[in-house]
């Protein structure tokens, strides 16, 4: 339990390591790499203990649940709030509003827990039979008890949402990710000490490796959506720094910028989605709150749909899904171990992890269960198929692997989209192992061949020279292609079965279209990986100098990863394959310990293993390998040799692939070109002519109006009045001055005349 409540140590240690390397790294004998390796080693051990702690925790829960099964079955119709309250008892007060309420309500014996109104209770009751059915499925699993700890980050002062918390949410999903991140990071650290030896920014490189790992651990352990956003952005920044590690060369710094800016596009979706969820979940950032409310119908379906569409945009950029995948192959500009880290354990899986973490939002928002197509599955399937096609025309081995990653991430996204949550997580797990192995293997070859990644021109015949690299690469390729019994076979098959299409039963929906696309993707995967093996390990050596096998710090991580890539499939064996039934302690262990059950997770069902589908996918992979083998090794399939030169349609197809479906052209030339060319000119014209015209026109009108007023009102009316008064006074004076003759007698005469007149008037008036 101590390890479950103190997982914050992991990101903290890595962050500390970052600072130590940054400040003291250069003065140390090994330039700071020893700090990084030690820190990540400690984290790996802690992660192992955490996994062990979770194992015990879950087992204890299961036995408890088994004891209470009879009671639970009796009360199942009522939605069983007390069992759920007990399940969330490891959540620290203050970390989740819903759980806090639940606790107080359970104390009062109030059966209307989880903040449900009557109508929602009814909705929940319909969900209850599903979970009851699942329990009767023989799984007998009690609700997962996530361990949540948090502390106040800051207070907003806004009523109703005063606290923003930061903390750790430990359940199967985060525990397995801790393991994946730390083990890949540890092997990458060790590998890097040899691979980037003598680099001019060796210390800086290790500092950022530490920060990268810290960010990913921080993200994985997120307790609130705010923390997720912070972790997400930190991962983005670190990838920017590491992709642009050799920024002196322009393409590298361009690639870093491209990665960063492309991610910004999706980050808008992330922010909008998180804000929508915050308000939808009654102003709570807590992941638990959002998940519980989303799965019990406490959030409107429309809002969930909106939030999931926004978050899909974020996933598209971070996890390299079509149409925002273009940054990912360019990210190969970074050092190879970084590529391994980015593509296997961090960065790109952040998107997958995000969907898995907020799965109820997608589950309800996209109505995954029972439908046959949805945005998430479609995006994933398109990526899986078209990404795999792109890998065929690459000369650069790392780019092949990059497109392979794009395609495999598509598999995971599709799996999430069709409801095969466990399959997606399991594929993430197995993929991390074999893809890291492939990347590191490619790095090992480039190390031997003068830092070239051009397998077509500079490799060849390395099988004899680099046997360890060859064998590990071969095993990982087999795993990626899905060859029985390597790990990729199990995880890929689980994904395919999860589509609920042909032959399979027990899945959540029926996604025929996606299954077809994924099978095409799987065929291509097998074929292009075989192609890399031909170019790298067979034929004559085409490069310069004498290649040599790499040292132990490079080959040992390869061997470890290849071994893991080969065997981790047994962690999630199906319950039975045809007539063979596995004992309970062997099958579906991954599912038992990783997949949550309970109020904060939808009750998904699991497709059972079916032999026709497995054989079919195996045959497809075998066909891919076989055809490529014939084509390269035996010069077979004459029809296809040089087809693109002879046939216009094939040539056009190849051109489209070489130009990466013209996405880069679309983004840089069409969109950016349009913005800086016609759009900028149009804006300028608009500014000059319309806006300035309006402003100038207003000015000119004002001037004209002023002149008119001056000429007409001021000069004529006002001055006219003033002058007129003067002129009138002067002229009347001129007239009157004649009266002023100065002759007194005249005055007197006037006086008397006036007096006589007045007297006359007086007499007439009175009289």
């Amino acid at each position, binding site marked *: 339990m101590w390890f479950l409540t103190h997982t914050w140590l992991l990101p903290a240690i890595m962050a500390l390591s970052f600072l130590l390397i940054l400040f003291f790294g250069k003065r140390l004998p090994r330039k700071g790499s020893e700090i990084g390796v030690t820190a990540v080693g400690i984290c790996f051990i802690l992660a192992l203990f955490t996994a062990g702690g979770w194992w015990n925790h879950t087992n204890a829960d299961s036995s408890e649940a088994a004891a209470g099964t009879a009671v639970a079955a009796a009360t199942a119709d009522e939605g069983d709030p007390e069992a759920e309250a007990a399940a969330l008892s490891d959540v620290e007060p203050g970390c989740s509003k819903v759980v806090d309420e639940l606790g107080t309500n359970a104390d009062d014996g109030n059966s209307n827990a989880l903040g449900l109104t009557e109508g929602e209770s009814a909705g929940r009751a319909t969900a209850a039979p599903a979970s009851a059915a699942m329990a009767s499925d023989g799984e007998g699993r009690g609700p997962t008890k996530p361990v949540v700890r948090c502390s106040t980050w800051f207070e907003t002062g806004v009523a109703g949402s005063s606290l923003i918390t930061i903390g750790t949410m430990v359940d199967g999903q985060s525990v397995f990710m801790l393991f994946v991140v730390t083990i890949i990071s540890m092997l990458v650290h060790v590998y890097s000490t040899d691979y980037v030896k003598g680099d001019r920014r060796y210390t800086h490189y290790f500092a950022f490796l530490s920060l990268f790992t810290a960010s990913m651990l921080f993200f994985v352990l997120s307790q609130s959506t705010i923390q997720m956003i912070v972790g997400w952005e930190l991962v983005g920044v670190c990838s920017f720094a590491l992709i642009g590690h050799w920024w002196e060369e322009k393409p590298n710094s361009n690639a870093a910028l491209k990665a960063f800016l492309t991610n910004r596009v999706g980050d808008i979706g992330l922010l909008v989605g998180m804000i929508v969820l915050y308000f939808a979940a009654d102003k709570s950032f807590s992941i638990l709150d959002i998940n519980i409310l989303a799965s019990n119908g406490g959030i409107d379906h429309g809002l969930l749909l909106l939030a999931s569409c926004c978050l899909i945009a974020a996933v598209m950029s971070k996890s390299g899904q079509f149409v925002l995948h273009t940054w990912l192959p360019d990210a190969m500009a970074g050092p190879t171990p970084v590529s391994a880290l980015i593509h296997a354990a961090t960065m790109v899986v952040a998107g997958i992890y995000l969907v898995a973490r907020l799965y109820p939002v997608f589950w309800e928002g996209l109505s995954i269960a029972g439908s046959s197509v949805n945005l998430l599955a479609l995006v994933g399937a398109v990526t899986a198929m078209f990404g795999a096609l792109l890998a065929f025309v690459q000369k650069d081995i790392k780019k092949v692997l990059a497109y392979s990653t794009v395609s495999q991430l598509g598999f995971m996204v599709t799996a999430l989209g069709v409801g095969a949550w466990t399959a997606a997580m399991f594929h993430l797990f197995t993929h991390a192992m074999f893809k890291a192995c492939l990347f590191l293997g490619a790095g090992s070859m480039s190390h031997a061949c003068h830092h070239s990644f051009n397998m077509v021109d500079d490799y060849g015949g390395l099988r004899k020279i680099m046997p360890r690299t060859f064998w590990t690469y071969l095993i990982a390729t087999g795993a990626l292609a899905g060859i029985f019994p390597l790990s990729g076979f199990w995880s890929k098959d689980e994904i395919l079965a999860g589509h609920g299409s042909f032959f399979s039963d027990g899945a959540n929906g029926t996604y025929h279209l996606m299954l077809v696309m994924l099978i095409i993707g799987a065929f291509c995967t097998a074929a292009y990986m075989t192609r890399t093996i031909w170019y790298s390990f067979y034929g004559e050596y085409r490069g310069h100098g004498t290649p040599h096998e790499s040292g132990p710090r490079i080959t040992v991580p390869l061997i470890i990863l290849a071994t893991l890539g080969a065997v981790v499939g047994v962690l999630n064996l199906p319950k039975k394959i045809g007539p063979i039934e596995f004992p309970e302690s062997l099958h579906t262990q991954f599912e038992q310990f990783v997949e949550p059950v309970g109020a904060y997770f939808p009750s998904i069902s699991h497709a059972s293993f079916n032999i026709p589908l497995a054989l079919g996918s195996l045959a497809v992979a075998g066909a891919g390998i076989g055809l490529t083998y014939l084509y390269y090794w035996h010069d077979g399939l004459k029809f296809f040799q040089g087809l693109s030169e002879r046939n216009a349609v094939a040539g056009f197809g190849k051109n489209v692939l070489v130009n990466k479906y013209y996405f880069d052209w679309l983004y840089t030339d069409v969109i950016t070109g349009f913005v800086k060319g016609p759009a900028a000119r149009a804006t300028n014209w608009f500014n000059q002519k319309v806006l300035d015209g309006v402003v100038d026109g207003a000015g000119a009108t004002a001037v004209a109006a002023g002149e008119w007023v001056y000429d007409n009102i001021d000069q004529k009316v006002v001055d006219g009045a003033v002058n007129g008064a003067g002129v009138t006074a002067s002229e009347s004076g001129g007239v009157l001055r004649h009266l*002023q003759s*100065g002759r*007194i*007698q005249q005055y*007197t*005469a006037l006086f008397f005349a006036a007096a006589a007149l007045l007297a006359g008037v007086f007499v007439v008036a009175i009289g």
Partner: protein
Amino acid sequence: MLLNQFLLLAAILFSIGVYGVIVRRNGVLVLMSIELILNAVNINLVAFSTFHGLDGQVFALFVIAVAAAEVGVGLAIVLLIYRNRRSVDIDELDELKG
């Protein structure tokens, strides 16, 4: 004795006075014409007082006193005019002309 006979006399005197004031050029004669006007008024006052009590006679005495003062000032002005211009022709005194 009828009142209107006195009023008629006063009117004739008044008219002669006004005529003298308006027409005569000699300043002294103008002053004398003013005396005629004042005396015409005095006759009126005294005539009315015989029918309405003694107020009119008191007024007449006031008018005589004021007329004496007036003539004093008037003659002094005329004398000064004469000293300056060697003439008392008031037609020549048109400095007030506008």
